[in-house]
Structures are given as structure tokens and as C-alpha cells.
């Protein structure tokens, strides 16, 4: 049953062929078996999950169940979950029990899903390999010597190893799409403002967006229907009708104009990944789409722009972790300065400190114009490129990452090289556009992902494009043999 999609499991729950409790037990058993090896979960909620499953079974029996009732999922540990440790992958919050639920968590609870546990992640979502977690790195189920990607690496590994049929994630600069690509899964980052950020611990507020990692686009559509929508507690949440993403999956791709940015196919891209993209485009052509070369002339600015904007925002967002009201506090502070510097110095890991310092520097007097203001302008240019492109095409496609999963420890000493792994992802966040990654083949026996970038609020079309591709291909059905 663990290889079934959410959609299949939902049908079995509905028909009472399977109970939520059985399903939950099965996944909890797999977590118990495989998690020690993969380190995908920070917290496993054995009893709570079973209680939720039993409650879901009652709803199912009474016939007042929704499409997601009884389905177990894993939550990235960046989402606040009431009464449950919410660590954000950091020593800083190792002792933090959230007194409230994030809006996304609340909505999934109301939909009747069962929370299996909280997944490992790069500390405060700052990383592309899940190696910055205070709880240790997560391993890629396809090859235990490789990284699963990050920052939602725990979510990706959990789903790839079939310890959960789906998981939530967040994507500030590729943190859903990149791990989905590196573990052979479908991941979606919606348009900025589509899913509430309330209760999602902030990394970079103008870039952060929640989404999901699943086996299929259909599964992603099911979850998106539950989590998307206006939330009055988030000023940047958008009050716009949420389409029925599942119903829209069948929309025809005839005449769909796909843009292929020539800048994506440059040095740095593993040619075999490029080949996989081109092979995927052949599938789309068969489905009636047309492919057009486009240009994103300011593409080269996206990573450097991102590494000014994101650290700047994070340096301020993380100031609240000061050892006073919650979180880690150093032993015996001698004075206020000591309380602050040691609580933060000891509570945060190296990459988080590096980004806080980068951000502090680019915002500081004398450097603001050269770095932060400049990056705000280049951000404008990057967005304008996309706006221009969407005048010519309906969706943009390309690789999610330049290479398949890299080795654990391979890039930890060189932050800039690590950052470049998200070269195709960063611009999408800077512009606030929706993006997806879906499995499109293998390079060196490791999965690689096709990225689809949609226009603002065009998730339905993006999901339909992914869904119909998945009806023609079987990449998304492949799982790592060791975790069959």
C-alpha cells in the first residue's frame, strides 16, 4: 500500500477497503524501520497520529469525510504545530513547543489528514543539501552517500522512501523543487501569496512560500486545494478564488506554448540533464504543445540577487531568537550583551550565522545602496524578464537543478558552489511565480527533475501540464529499490 498515490489511497479509504488507522500504522512502521538510516524525521508522532487516524475513520464511517480525510502526511518542521516541538532544524528551537498551529497545518487538520511527524530540514531552511540541520544530515534514499537536497530534504526523503505518501515543504529559493528533483518526486511551490505564511517560521518573508512534495501532480493538486487560499492573518496572502486543481488536471495541452530559456542551457548544466529536458519536451509536443526558445537576459543576476535579498531579510527575521521569550538560552549570561551573543552564537549553526552576517552587512550603513538597493533593482529586472516571457508563452520549462544529487559533504566548505545548485530556482522566488519540479529521468542512476514555471496564479495549468506528462511517462512511479 505504501507505493500507492494519495489519490489511490483516498479511494481505498472512501470505499472502506482500508482504514486510516491501518494506513497510518503501515507508514509509522516504515518510519520506524527506515528513519534511523535516512534521518528524515525530527519528530515522529506515533500516538497522536493514530488518534487522528481513528478520528478520521469515524468521519469516514459517518460519511462526512473530505477528499483528504484519513490520509497520513508528514509536516516539514518549519510549520508551527500546536503542542508539538517545532524546531526548524535548529538547536535554537530544540526546546520549542508551539502554542499554535500554522494556517497550513490547521487547514490540513480540518481536512482530516493525519500528521505522521515533523521532517528534518536545513536549519531555518537555509541550505540546499539538508546538511545544515542541527539534527544531522538527511540521506538520499536513492544513494545513501548523496544529499536529498534542501531545505525540505527530510520531506523529500520521507516521501521518496515511502515513509509518508506526501509531505509539506517550503520554498524560499528552490527548497521544494530542488529536493523533489533530487529524490524523484513531484514538488510544487505556488505563487507567492497563494498559501498563507502564517505559522511558517520565516526565513525570507518576500520569498517564502509553502507547498507540497508528492508522488504525482494529481496528489499535489489534491493537497493544494486544501492549503491554498486567503488567510486574514497574513497580510501578503491573496484574496483570490482557488480553482479546483483536481478538476483542472484534464485541461488540454493542445496549443500550450512552452518557453525554453536559452540561458538555462549554458555551461554549468550537466549535458545529460539537458538531454532529459529535451526528451521531456518531445512528450509535450506529442500532447499538442509547441516549444519556443525564449530569453531571460537577466537570468545571470538571479543567484547574486537572491544572496543579497534572502540574507538581508533573514538577518532581521531571526533577530527574535534572543534567548528571552522562547528558544535556547546560554548558561549563566553575565550581562545582556552576553545573553544575546552567546544564546544566538551557540543556538545557531554556521550557515545560519553566515547568512545573518551577510544580511547584516548588506543592510548596514554605507553598504545598503551598493548591495540591498542594487539587488532590489536587479530583482525588478529579473521579474520583468519573466513578465516579458509570459507575453509569448504559457509556461516556461527547463531543468530544476544543473546536476543530479551531489555527495554528502561535497559542497559544505564552499557556500557559493552550494548556492549555485539553485541557479534555476532562485529567480522564480524573486519574481514570486509558481514553480514545479517533476521526475523526468535518471542520470547516473539518480533522478533528475523537469522544472515548470507558471505565470502568476496559474498553478492549475502548471499542474495539468505535469499531470498529463505523468500519464505519458512513468518516471514518477519509480522508487529507490532499497526502500521498496
Amino acid at each position, binding site marked *: 500500500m505504501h507505493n500507492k498515490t494519495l489519490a489511490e489511497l483516498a479511494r481505498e479509504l472512501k470505499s472502506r477497503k482500508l482504514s486510516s488507522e491501518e494506513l497510518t500504522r503501515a507508514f509509522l512502521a516504515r518510519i520506524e524501520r527506515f528513519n534511523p538510516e535516512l534521518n528524515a524525521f525530527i519528530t515522529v508522532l506515533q500516538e497522536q497520529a493514530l488518534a487522528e487516524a481513528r478520528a478520521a475513520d469515524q468521519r469516514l464511517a459517518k460519511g462526512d469525510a473530505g477528499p483528504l480525510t484519513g490520509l497520513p502526511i508528514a509536516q516539514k518542521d518549519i510549520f508551527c504545530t500546536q503542542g508539538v516541538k517545532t524546531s526548524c532544524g535548529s538547536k535554537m528551537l530544540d526546546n520549542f513547543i508551539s502554542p499554535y498551529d500554522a494556517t497550513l497545518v490547521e487547514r490540513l487538520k480540518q481536512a482530516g489528514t493525519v500528521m505522521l511527524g515533523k521532517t528534518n530540514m536545513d536549519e531555518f531552511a537555509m541550505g540546499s543539501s539538508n546538511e545544515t540541520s542541527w539534527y544531522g544530515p538527511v540521506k538520499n534514499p536513492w544513494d545513501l552517500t548523496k544529499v536529498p537536497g534542501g531545505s525540505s530534504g527530510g520531506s523529500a526523503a520521507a516521501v521518496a522512501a515511502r515513509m509518508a505518501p506526501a509531505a509539506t515543504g517550503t520554498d524560499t529559493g528552490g527548497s521544494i523543487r530542488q529536493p523533489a528533483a533530487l529524490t524523484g518526486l513531484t514538488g510544487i511551490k505556488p505563487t507567492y501569496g497563494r498559501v498563507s505564511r502564517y505559522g511558517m517560521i520565516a526565513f525570507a518573508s518576500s520569498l517564502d512560500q509553502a507547498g507540497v512534495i508528492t508522488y504525482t501532480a494529481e496528489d499535489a493538486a489534491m493537497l493544494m486545494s486544501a492549503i491554498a487560499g486567503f488567510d486574514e492573518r497574513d497580510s501578503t496572502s491573496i484574496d483570490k478564488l482557488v480553482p479546483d486543481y483536481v478538476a483542472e488536471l484534464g485541461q488540454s495541452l493542445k496549443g500550450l506554448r512552452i518557453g525554453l530559456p536559452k540561458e538555462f542551457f549554458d555551461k554549468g548544466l550537466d549535458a545529460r540533464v539537458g538531454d532529459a529536458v529535451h526528451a521531456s519536451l518531445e512528450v509535450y509536443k506529442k500532447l499538442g504543445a509547441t516549444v519556443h526558445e525564449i530569453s531571460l537576459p537577466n537570468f545571470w543576476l538571479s543567484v547574486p540577487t537572491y544572496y543579497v535579498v534572502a540574507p538581508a531579510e533573514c538577518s532581521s527575521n531571526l533577530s527574535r531568537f534572543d534567548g528571552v521569550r522562547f528558544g535556547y538560552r546560554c548558561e549563566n549570561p553575565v550581562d*545582556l550583551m552576553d545573553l544575546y551573543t552567546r544564546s544566538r552564537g551557540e543556538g545557531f549553526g554556521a550557515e545560519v550565522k553566515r547568512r545573518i552576517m551577510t544580511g547584516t552587512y548588506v543592510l548596514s550603513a554605507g553598504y545598503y545602496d551598493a548591495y540591498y538597493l542594487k539587488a532590489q533593482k536587479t530583482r525588478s529586472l529579473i521579474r520583468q524578464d519573466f513578465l516579458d516571457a509570459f507575453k509569448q508563452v504559457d509556461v516556461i520549462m527547463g531543468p530544476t537543478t544543473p546536476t543530479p544529487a551531489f555527495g554528502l559533504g561535497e559542497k559544505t566548505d564552499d557556500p557559493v558552489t552550494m548556492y549555485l545548485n539553485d541557479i534555476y530556482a532562485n529567480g522564480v522566488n524573486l519574481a514570486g511565480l509558481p514553480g514545479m519540479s517533476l521526475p523526468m529521468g535518471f542520470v547516473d542512476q539518480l533522478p533528475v527533475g523537469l522544472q515548470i514555471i507558471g505565470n502568476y496564479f496559474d498553478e492549475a495549468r502548471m499542474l495539468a501540464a505535469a499531470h498529463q506528462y505523468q500519464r505519458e511517462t512513468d518516471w514518477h512511479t519509480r522508487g529507490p529499490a532499497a526502500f521498496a
Partner: protein
Amino acid sequence: MEWETVIGLEIHAQLATNSKIFSGASTAFGSAPNTQACLVDLGYPGVLPVLNKEAVRMAVKFGLAVNAEISERSVFARKNYFYPDLPKGYQISQYELPVVGKGNVEIELEDGSSKRIGVTRAHLEEDAGKSLHEDFQGMSGIDLNRAGTPLLEIVSEPDMRSAKEAIAYMKKIHSLVRYLEICDGNMQEGSFRCDANVSIRRKGDAKFGTRAELKNINSFHFVEKAINYEVERQIDLLEGGGKVVQETRLYDSKKNETRSMRSKEEANDYRYFPDPDLLPLEIAPEFIKEVEKTLPELPDQKRQRFVTQFGLSAYDAGVLTASRELADYYEAVVKAVGGEPKLAANWVMGELSGGLNKDNRELSASPVSAELLAGLLKRIIDNTISGKIAKEVFEAMWAGEGDADAVIERKGLKQITDSSALEQVIDKVIADNPQQLADYRAGKDKLFGFFVGQAMKATQGKANPQQLNDLLKKKLAG
């Protein structure tokens, strides 16, 4: 050496909203520590600010009242610094694009002239919590109830040239925010606070001197003392060959001195940047028009009206319109009396204000309401009592002994206006003082006052003075 003082004020007015600027927690004052600090106020991980519409409306109201431009688009920015009373490690404020732009107010000076003071800007921001320095195991305690209370920071131009002008300006703004009902103006509770930027320069110099920022001057009285102390300090420094350094200084009202704030010593690098959790605030012209309709009559307009409608002097009108409550009280008295605005003005500014001052009471806590005072004035006007007796009646009313009629009745203070009764008294006085009568009739006119006094004494002051005068003149003339 002649020095000129240059002062600019930054006034923080807590806006009188029910809930906080970015959260749904109450802004009520005086609750148990941290019981009004919700997740947003505490800066909990994951929570987000949502702007209170009423705070925006109040800021616009203020802007309109000081003839300022209201920004169609303003931006919230984060001011980053670490302090225990600042839970997020940044204050949400406005930096480059404030909601209220350039405006001005007129202040009245003691010599009767007026002066225009520029308002540079006014912006919305959140208040911080409080550090309590009582000893808790050798530590400070943090109460975040106040954190997130909406503040309007009103920044003046450096247009004031003396502590007196600074106070006049501060009082003007204080009166304005209360007229507008956007701030309760309570300085003891910190609802209305002031920092002053003070510098001195040689008279005639075009360039400003280096300024010191004085914090914590939270009464009109202290503003004057703190500024005067600081000016003396700077003059001593400069005349002694020293230099003023730009710094933040704390005013210590107990010692009446300012001292450098150690905690603010470190060069402040606030790293302002637009708050990514809050989109630009756009204010539509229709919204401004709507707010404009709710503007009450402002102090300057009211003062002008009092001069023309009631025939008051500009000074009296100014005193009576200094606060909306006093002006309302005064108008209520005039209305209830049905005229005699000058008499009403004298009583409101005289006995009433004196009584409030003496007891250190707010007008709202006055034992003599506008209706009660009007009742008293009516008895003066209809000659039931004299002005002098009225003061006695007022005192009894102040002490809670009932309304004017009751007091007059009980104490038997009714004026004697019965001519025959008065004549009897006068006859007796004349009869008892034959020598004085003879002297008077011989040309000692001054003795008239003696006879008035005797007659008043005999009537315990209840004789109608005019009537007494007339009758006495007739009788003395023989």
C-alpha cells in the same frame, strides 16, 4: 557671547485604538504583566503583522489637522536593534515614506504674538514594551503589554528657539490630538511622550550646532527644565572651549540633569529596510475625504469663533479652547445660562479652573458640572445673589452641598431686594452713626463707603449692591 537655542521635538502619541497596531491584543493600560501580549506582540516564530485600519485613520486625521500632505503611498520599514523590550529585534516603523508629510501648526507666545512651527512628518509605528528595573534575582523584568501599541511619531522642524516655545508647541500638539480624539494625552501613563533635539549656535549663524537628543521628558514642566539644563550645559561646554557631541541623553527629573545614555552609546546602525511582511500602505482620496468629514472644530477655529460669537478677548478664547473638554464645558454653561458669555468665561477661567488646580483634578472629575455652574450664574443674573455671595455658594457646591438654589436656600443667602426691608436697615445704620452722617453731609463723600459697609454687614452681605447704593444715596442726602 550671545547664543541662540534651536529645538526640534519628536512627540510620540499613543493612538487610542482598542487593539494594537498589528495584532488583536487589547491596548488597555494597567493590566497584569504580559497578559495583553499575544503571539504577534511577543514576536513568536511564524506570526505575522496585520495593520489596524483605525490607526491609519487616526494618522490621517492628524495629518489633516496640521495641514499636512497625506501620502498616497507609504511604506513600513523595520528598524533593527536588539533590546529586551523589543521582542522581534526590530521595530516596525516608517522611514523613507511616512504616512503624513509636511505640515504646520501655529503656537501662541506669551507676548500675544503667534509663530508657525513646521511639522516635518508624522509616521505610524509600534510601541515597545517596558523593562522593569526592580530587582528580580538581580535581573530586569520585561513586560510586553505595551509592545505593539500604535504610536504616531510627530517630528517637528527645528523651529523653536526657547524652552517656552517648545512647551507651547508641545501643548498645541497635545491639545490637537485630544481634540481629534486620537490620543488620550495621558502623560503619566506614557500615552504622550516627548524627546527633544537641542542645540545652540551663535546668534546670527546660519548653521545649526551639534545636537543632543533628550529622552524621557514626559511632562510639560520637565521639558522646560530639561531643555534649560541642556542649553546651559552646552553653553558651558562651548564657552569652556569644548565641543558638543551628538548623543542621546536621558533627563533625570530627580536630579534635574541630563546624562549620556550608556545603552545607546554604541553607534546605532538600524539597518532600515522595507518590511517584507507588510505591503505598501495606499490611502485613497475617498478615504481622506471620509476622514475629513469626521474632523471636529479644531482649537484655532474654535478660538476664533469664541472671539466673534461670544465677544471674548483672544487671550480668554485661547485659554478656554486649550482643551476640548474645557471648551465644551464653557459652551455648555453659556447654553444653559442662555447668554452672558463673558460672565461664564470669568467663572470658568476663575473659580472653576482655580478649584481644579487647587485639588489637582481633571475637568471630568469636577464636582461642579456645567449645569450646576449655569444654575449659579443664573442666580447672579437674576439678582438672587451677588457675585461675592456667589463665590461662597460655589465653594459649597464644590464641597458637594447641592445645587445653587439648595445652597442659597439652606444658608439663607438670598439677596435682600425688598426696598422696605433695605430701607429699615439703612435707617438703623444712619440712626446708629449720627457723627458720620453729619460729617458726610458736611462734605466728607468718602464716608459713603463706610455706610455701604455697615449696611452690608447688617445684611450679612445679602443686600443687592446696586439697590443699596441707590437707597443709601437718597437717604444720606436727607
